[in-house]
């Protein structure tokens, strides 16, 4: 083994791990974004869901998820080995680094669900669903895409020209499809929709937290997209990484500007929450292919996402699909846009391939999630009682408020 190769192996592994840590930090971003966009009485519970789902995703993916997705052994058997020895075409990073980078993506997909079902779903029903999504539903569609396996032996997405660089569809749209199925079975928050098609606002409690969450996600996304180059220790991969960082940033900026201006034009005032969703939409839009667009194209793709997300949020409200944080619009609708933009700059993909891939992911995740949610509903119910919802889920589920006042010790 040459010293140059050893250096490459060390550097690529190191890069992979740092990017994984950045993506792990997106869990903090989702937590803050969601804590900011719910009411104070539901803060502790949404934070509990976020930390717990992260831990569940890590554990389920370790137990069986990674094995299903990449055809390996249960409980990561063999993961401790050396990625470079005994292989004809050796990987340039440690097998355990690959697992670490993959596992934080599963957690991201599940994080998308928590925001959409916020303020009314039972904590333990949600956590039970997290087990199913991260242990089975996501790994299955992951095996057909990044895993390269055929879809139940019928067709192979890679052969059809399907390409999803860092997961606009595989991670983001998948999370949104699971969320949509949950929201349909769960129903809207009480008071969100009035008679005669009235849509009532339920303003979020803490916009500084929502903004901090968006910045954390924006930063974590450099690991999400940048790490998906899978290497950095050669001129070619280093160039690619730099382009991906540049375009990821450009798309977020384009998405924010477009959503901010559109909100001002539609509503008369600059709606910060729409601007934040715009930045995230820009990021989701570029995630399917951040390595081939020019910076201008990346900015425009992001801006398209920013515009689409505002109209999508308004449309979902008209359909009475209540999504407190806009997760289904940001990750689902714009995730699909991201997939469909790939063939414009990447000759290796085709529109038909992208469409078939999107349909495959959506139908699989939506149908299996719907069944899972339905079974959970029958077993334990999805929704807290009307009174519990009015009082806030913090007290009923967690027994503590996020900002307690007038408490004294029991002496």
């Amino acid at each position, binding site marked *: 083994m040459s010293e140059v190769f050893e250096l490459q192996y060390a550097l690529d592994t190191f890069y992979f791990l740092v990017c994984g840590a950045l993506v792990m930090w997106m869990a903090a971003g989702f937590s803050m974004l969601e804590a900011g966009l719910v009411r104070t009485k539901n803060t502790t519970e949404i934070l509990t869901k976020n930390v717990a789902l992260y831990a569940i995703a890590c554990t389920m993916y370790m137990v069986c998820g990674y094995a299903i997705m990449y055809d390996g052994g249960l409980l990561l058997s063999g993961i401790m080995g050396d990625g470079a020895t005994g292989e004809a075409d050796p990987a340039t990073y440690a097998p355990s680094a690959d697992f670490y980078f993959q596992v934080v993506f599963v957690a991201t997909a599940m994080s998308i669900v928590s925001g959409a079902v916020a303020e009314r779903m039972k904590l333990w029903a949600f956590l039970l669903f997290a087990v199913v999504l991260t242990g089975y539903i996501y790994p299955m569609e992951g095996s057909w895409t990044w895993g390269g396996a055929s879809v139940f032996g019928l067709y192979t997405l890679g052969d059809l020209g399907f390409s999803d660089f860092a997961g606009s569809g595989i991670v983001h749209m998948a999370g949104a499809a699971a969320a949509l199925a949950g929201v349909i079975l769960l129903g809207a928050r009480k008071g969100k929709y009035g008679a005669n098609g009235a*849509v*009532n*606002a*339920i*303003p979020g409690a803490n916009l500084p937290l929502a903004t901090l969450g968006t910045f954390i996600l924006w930063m974590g996304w450099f690991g999400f997209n940048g790490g998906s180059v899978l290497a950095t220790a050669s001129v070619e991969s280093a160039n690619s990484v730099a382009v991906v960082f540049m375009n990821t940033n450009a798309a977020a900026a384009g998405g924010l500007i477009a959503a901010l201006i559109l909100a001002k034009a*539609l*509503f*008369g*005032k600059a*709606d910060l*929450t*729409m601007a934040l969703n715009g930045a995230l939409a820009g990021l989701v839009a570029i995630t399917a292919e951040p390595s081939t667009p020019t910076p201008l194209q990346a900015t425009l793709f992001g801006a398209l996402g920013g515009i689409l997300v*505002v109209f999508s*949020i*308004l449309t979902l*409200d008209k359909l009475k699909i209540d999504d407190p944080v*806009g997760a289904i619009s940001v990750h689902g609708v714009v995730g699909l846009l991201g997939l469909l933009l790939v063939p414009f700059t990447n000759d290796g993909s085709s529109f038909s391939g992208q469409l078939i891939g999107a349909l495959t992911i959506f139908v699989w995740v939506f149908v299996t999630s719907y069944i899972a949610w339905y079974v959970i509903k029958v077993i334990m119910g999805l929704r807290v009682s009307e009174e519990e919802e009015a009082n806030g889920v913090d007290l009923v589920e967690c027994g503590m408020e996020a900002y307690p006042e007038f408490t004294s010790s029991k002496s």
Partner: protein
Amino acid sequence: MKMVTAIIKPFKLDEVREALGDLGVTGVTVTEVKGFGRQKGHTELYRGAEYVVDFLPKVKLEIALADELVERAVEAITSAAQTGKIGDGKIFITNTEQVIRIRTGETGADAI
């Protein structure tokens, strides 16, 4: 003795505090409150959906005064808090039966 309760616009608090201080008023209790009067509320949009802000933020001052100070105090508050636009607030004057300073047990005007 009287209790003067004044509801004013929040940004006028400093000027009112200064005017009362100049009169020799020795204590004021201040609370941030919300309410509506003739100014009513206003409608805002959040993520494209309308919501009504029914109650506007105001500051409430409670001032216990000896009878001879009341008229001048009311004048001071009125001139300091006035903008001439709707929503300047109100002053309520009520009789105060007794005042007690907790530290010394003094009562009546001495306790103010």
